[in-house]
C-alpha cells in the first residue's frame, strides 16, 4: 500500500507538471523510497492515483535502470566498467570485489546485504576507477579502499 504521506507527495509532484503524467518518474522514486521496489500491486495503485493504465506505469519501471520490479538487497554497489574506467583497471577491481564479497555481479549476498553490479559511464572518467554505492560516488579507488567501503555497509 502506498502510504497517505507518499500519496500526498505524489499529488504535489503532479501539480508541478503541465500534464500529471510528467510526475511519473518522481512518483516512482517516492514509491521506491517507501517500499524499496515497485511491486505489481503498487503499479496498479500508482496508475489509479495518476489516472494511467497500469501498463503505462509498468513499461516505465522496466525501461529505466534505477527502478526495480522486485525486492532488492539493502545496498547496491556498482563499479563503472565503461572504457575510461576499464583502461584504469576497473574490471580487475570488480573481479577482486566479487571474490571479496563472495558473490558474483548481479547475485545478492546470502544475507541480503549487498549486490555488486557494473555500470556504464557514470561521468567520473577522470577519477577512475570508481563505484557508485547506493546514491554516493566513490572515486580514485584502489582495492583496499573499495573493500573498506563495502565492509562498512550494514
Amino acid at each position: 500500500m502506498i502510504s497517505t504521506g507518499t500519496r500526498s507527495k505524489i499529488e504535489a509532484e503532479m501539480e508541478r507538471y503541465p500534464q500529471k503524467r510528467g510526475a511519473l518518474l518522481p512518483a516512482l522514486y517516492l514509491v521506491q523510497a517507501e517500499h524499496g521496489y515497485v511491486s505489481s500491486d503498487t503499479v496498479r495503485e500508482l496508475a489509479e492515483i495518476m489516472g494511467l493504465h497500469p501498463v503505462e506505469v509498468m513499461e516505465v519501471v522496466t525501461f529505466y535502470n534505477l527502478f526495480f520490479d522486485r525486492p532488492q538487497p539493502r545496498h547496491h554497489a556498482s563499479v563503472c566498467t565503461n572504457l575510461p574506467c576499464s583502461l584504469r583497471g576497473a574490471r580487475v577491481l570488480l573481479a577482486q570485489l566479487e571474490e571479496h564479497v563472495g558473490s558474483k555481479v548481479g547475485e545478492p549476498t546470502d544475507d541480503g546485504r549487498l549486490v555488486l553490479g557494473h555500470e556504464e559511464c557514470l561521468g567520473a572518467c577522470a577519477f577512475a576507477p570508481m563505484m557508485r554505492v547506493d546514491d554516493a560516488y566513490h572515486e580514485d579507488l584502489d582495492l583496499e579502499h573499495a573493500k573498506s567501503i563495502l565492509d562498512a555497509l550494514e
Partner: protein
Amino acid sequence: MLKVPHVTSYLTEHFAEDAFGTLAGYEKKGGYAAARKALTEMAPGDVIELVKASGLQGRGGAGFNTGLKWSFMPADSDVPKYLVCNADESEPGSFKDRILLERSPHQLLEGILIAAYAVGACTTFIYIRGEYSFPADQVERAVAEAYDQGHLGPNVLGSGFRHDVVVHRGAGAYICGEETGLLESLEGKKGQPRKKPPFPAQVGAFGMPTTVNNVETFCHVPYIVNRGAEWFRGFGTEASPGTTLFGVSGHVVKPGLFELPLGTPLSEIVFEHAGGIAGGRKVKGVIPGGMSMPILPAGQLDVPMANESLRERGTMLGTGGIMVMDETTCMVRVGCVISYFFRDESCGQCTQCREGTGWLNKIMNRIERGAGQSEDLGVLLDIAAKMEGQTICAFADAAAWPVQGLLRHFRADFEEHVRLGRCPFTASFEL
C-alpha cells in the same frame, strides 16, 4: 576544491572556491549581472541576435548554432513555451556537465534565465540523469536560493519577467540524452526518441514549443551578454568560437578537466595539460569527443579540436570527452567495450539499431576470443553502414561510427586476432 587537475578560463575561473556554488558567492563574483542586463535593458530578439552573432555552438554534441536554435521558437504564441536543460550527461568519457552542476549551479541558472527570456519560456525543466544525485542536490539547493531571493518566480530580478524552474531527475537511460528521448521521459514515458519533424521548437515538451540546450551551452551565455559577441569570438576559431571543457581520461598522467579555446591541438591537451602518457609509454589512439566519435591514431593528434578540423579527419568534437589509449591497448577489446555499451543502451525502437548493435557486439566478442573469421571485418562494416542514417535518432550512427573508426585506423589489430586465433595483446587492459 575541484579535485582534479584543471586549466581554467572564464567558465571555470572560480571553481576552486566552494562559495562560488552559493548565490551570495556567485553574486560576489558578478553573478546575475548579465541576467539583470538582459531582462531589463534588452529585448528578447536582441538577446537572440547577440548569441547568434557570438557563434556559440551547442556543447551537447551536435555543435548547432545556439542563437539560431533559439530563433526557431515561435515569437508570438498563445500557448506556453518551455525551455529544457539537458543535464542527462551520459556520453562515455564526458563529465564536464557534472562538474558544472556541482561547482556552479547559479551560473547555469543565470544562463537559463537569459535563454528563457530570449525565447519567451515560462518554465524550464532541468533534466538531470538519475545517477547524478549529488549534482541534482546542488541544483535543487540553488533553485531554492534563487526563489528565496526573487531570482526566480513571478518577478525575476524585479524585471516583471516570470519564470519557474523544475528539477527533474531521470532514472538511468543513456537514450534520454537524445533531446526527444528526453522529452518523452520528461512526460513520464519510456525514453524513446521521436520522429522529426515536428522539431521540438514546434512540438516539444507536453506538446508545446520547446528549446533544449546542454548545461555547458547555458553556462557560456551570461559571459556573452556581459562581455559581448566580439569578446567571445576572441577565443577559439572563426567557425568555432569560445572555450570549451575538455575532459581527459584513460592512460594519461593527469586525467582532468581543461577549459581551453576550441581549436586547441589535441596533442597539446594530451601531452601538456594531461601530462602525457603514463609509465613513459607511447600513445596508440585517442577518442576525441566521447565514445560515439571515431578514434584517431597516434599520427593524427596534431588536429585542432574544433568541428571543422575534426570532420576533415573523419571524426567530431562531440562532447569533448577525450579518451587516451597507450600502446599496450588492444583495439578489439576497445571495440568490445564500446559495442557492449550501445547494445545495452539501444532503446529497441528501430530494427537496424536494436539488431545491429547486438550483432556488432557479438562479432567483436568473437574476434577477441579468437573465433573470428576473415569475413567478419567486412560484416562489421556492412552492419555499420546499414545502421548509419537509417533510424529515428542518431544513436545508431553513434554506435556505427566508432566501429568504422576502429577498422579505419586499427584494422591490423583485428586481422592479427583472426590470423592467430587469439588476442595478441597480453599487456592490454583486462576485459
